[in-house]
């Protein structure tokens, strides 16, 4: 078995004559030009245009843009078999279909599927409400696990631990907006960042202990923020995007009996000969030095992309009210009670304004202009970033949060998971079933 790493969760697995490519994200600037690879992938000679297309299977884990990138995927044949997890709803399958693929194989979680040549794959779904999936590949007497961003249940991890995994790609870095984008005082934010980073590394160590692979590759991040105005997001004391070298150090410090391996994009691992270093030397320079130099190289391009973002339409207020009123009204009373939020939306820009989405309302109106004094969650965002979600041009509201081009606040300062689930996927039946569970 041979596996080449292309950053984030992208691995090219070559086993017994089969080629499986996972989560190919080969462009830069996901989520409104905010997310870049750990190292600029094109500088390792990798582009969607030049990437070899003789792939037997694609595996796509979940809808996030750094995993399912339309600009990359349009370079692959629409006939290629695409392996995805059979999730609770068809939303992800429809998204993949919408990219032009029509040979999609939805595999139920935990089901082992033979691909021929004694190669088999097993897809495991997340323990959470969100759609996500990990991949186990077996062949050539070897087993590879790619966790992607997937938070597997403990029983699934225990079962993996009994499978003699040879090499595992594990998520270790933070990959969202908490706590950086919240309005905490700076010292509180730094303390929360420190706690979150400790927790993420501890989680990595624990998952590795349970799954017990021979070789561990810290993967699926960190993303890099190259916008010159937001470089602070990459810092150790203000951001949660952890240097892979820290993950390797954490595994060594915990004395876990595994081989931690730092693979940069284009490095390869062969089950017979081990690591092959192919990545440019610059990918191994100190992370903060690399980021500052890369930011300088990309600053002009980021400015151009931002300048090309289409403005919001003048119908934003009407669309916003219809969008949220329809979605909240469609929820069952149980779900609205569980969310129990007053969501303040502060939209800046020419079409801006303030609105409150009130999940505590008895209906039929759930949104009104202006902010109530007792709002519980606040999102401040530019009109042009919000508008594509209101028009249906973009389907995954979480992309807006992942752009890190938002400001957030919450009162009280506690995680409202039901609100997050609503923003992630407001499918009424799915939400109801999730919260109706005993």
């Amino acid at each position, binding site marked *: 078995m041979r596996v080449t790493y292309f950053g984030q969760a992208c691995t090219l697995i070559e086993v017994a004559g089969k080629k499986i490519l996972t989560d190919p994200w080969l462009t830069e600037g996901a989520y409104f030009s905010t997310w870049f690879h750990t190292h600029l992938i094109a500088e390792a000679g990798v582009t969607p245009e030049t990437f070899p297309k003789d792939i037997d299977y694609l595996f796509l884990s979940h809808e996030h843009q750094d995993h399912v990138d339309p600009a990359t995927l349009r370079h692959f044949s629409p006939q290629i078999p695409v392996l995805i997890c059979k999730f609770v709803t068809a939303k992800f399958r429809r998204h993949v279909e919408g990219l032009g693929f029509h040979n999609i194989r939805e595999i139920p979680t935990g089901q082992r599927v033979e691909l021929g040549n004694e190669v088999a794959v097993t897809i495991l779904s997340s323990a959470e409400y969100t759609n996500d999936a990990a991949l186990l590949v077996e062949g050539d007497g070897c087993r590879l696990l790619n966790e992607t961003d997937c938070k597997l249940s*403990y029983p699934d991890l225990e079962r993996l631990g009994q499978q003699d995994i040879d090499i595992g790609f594990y998520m270790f870095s933070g990959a969202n907006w908490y706590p950086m984008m919240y309005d905490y005082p700076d010292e509180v934010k730094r303390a929360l960042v420190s706690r979150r980073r400790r927790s993420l590394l501890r989680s990595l160590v624990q998952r590795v202990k349970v799954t017990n692979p021979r070789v561990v590759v810290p993967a699926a991040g960190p993303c890099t923020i190259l916008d010159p105005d937001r470089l602070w997001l990459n810092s150790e004391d203000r951001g949660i995007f952890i240097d892979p070298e820290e993950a390797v150090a954490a595994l060594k410090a915990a004395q876990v009996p595994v081989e931690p391996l730092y693979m940069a994009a284009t490095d390869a691992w062969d089950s017979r000969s081990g690591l092959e270093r192919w990545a440019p030397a610059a990918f191994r320079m100190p992370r903060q030095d690399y980021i500052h130099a890369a930011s300088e190289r990309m600053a002009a391009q980021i400015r151009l992309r931002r300048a090309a973002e289409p403005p919001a339409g003048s119908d934003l207020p009407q669309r916003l009210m219809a969008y949220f009123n329809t979605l909240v009204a469609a929820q069952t009373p149980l779900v609205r009670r569980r969310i129990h939020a007053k969501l303040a939306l502060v939209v800046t820009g020419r079409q801006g304004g303030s609105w409150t989405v009130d999940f505590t309302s008895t209906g039929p109106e759930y949104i009104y202009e202006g902010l109530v004094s007792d709002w519980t969650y606040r999102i401040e965002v530019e009109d042009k970033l919000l508008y594509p979600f209101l028009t249906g041009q973009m389907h995954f509201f979480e992309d807006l949060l992942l752009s890190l081009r938002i400001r957030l606040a919450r009162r009280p300062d506690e995680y409202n998971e039901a609100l997050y689930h609503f923003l992630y996927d407001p499918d009424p039946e799915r939400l109801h079933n999730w919260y109706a569970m005993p």
Partner: protein
Amino acid sequence: MPCLEIKLDDIPLEIPVRLKHDGAAIVVIQTRNGVSAFHDRCPHAQWPVSDGEIVDGILVCPGHGWQFNMNTGQCLNSPTYQLKPLSVVVYNDSIHIEWE
């Protein structure tokens, strides 16, 4: 109703202890406020919280860092989560735990 009796001295202060009995996994925690016991399963992704650590008086799940009040089992990150508490009676130097 399954039950279990253990010695108070077998449960160190503020160190989660995992016990298995009748097919059930239990975590027992002794604090300065008393003894509490829960099913040893984080409601988030089913990790055994007994493998977690206690930081500043808070039980932290080893899996994904969810935090719990050691006495009530209430999740401090999200009020919708709670460790499932078991009935605990302490008398003399013994702890009696019952669950359904």
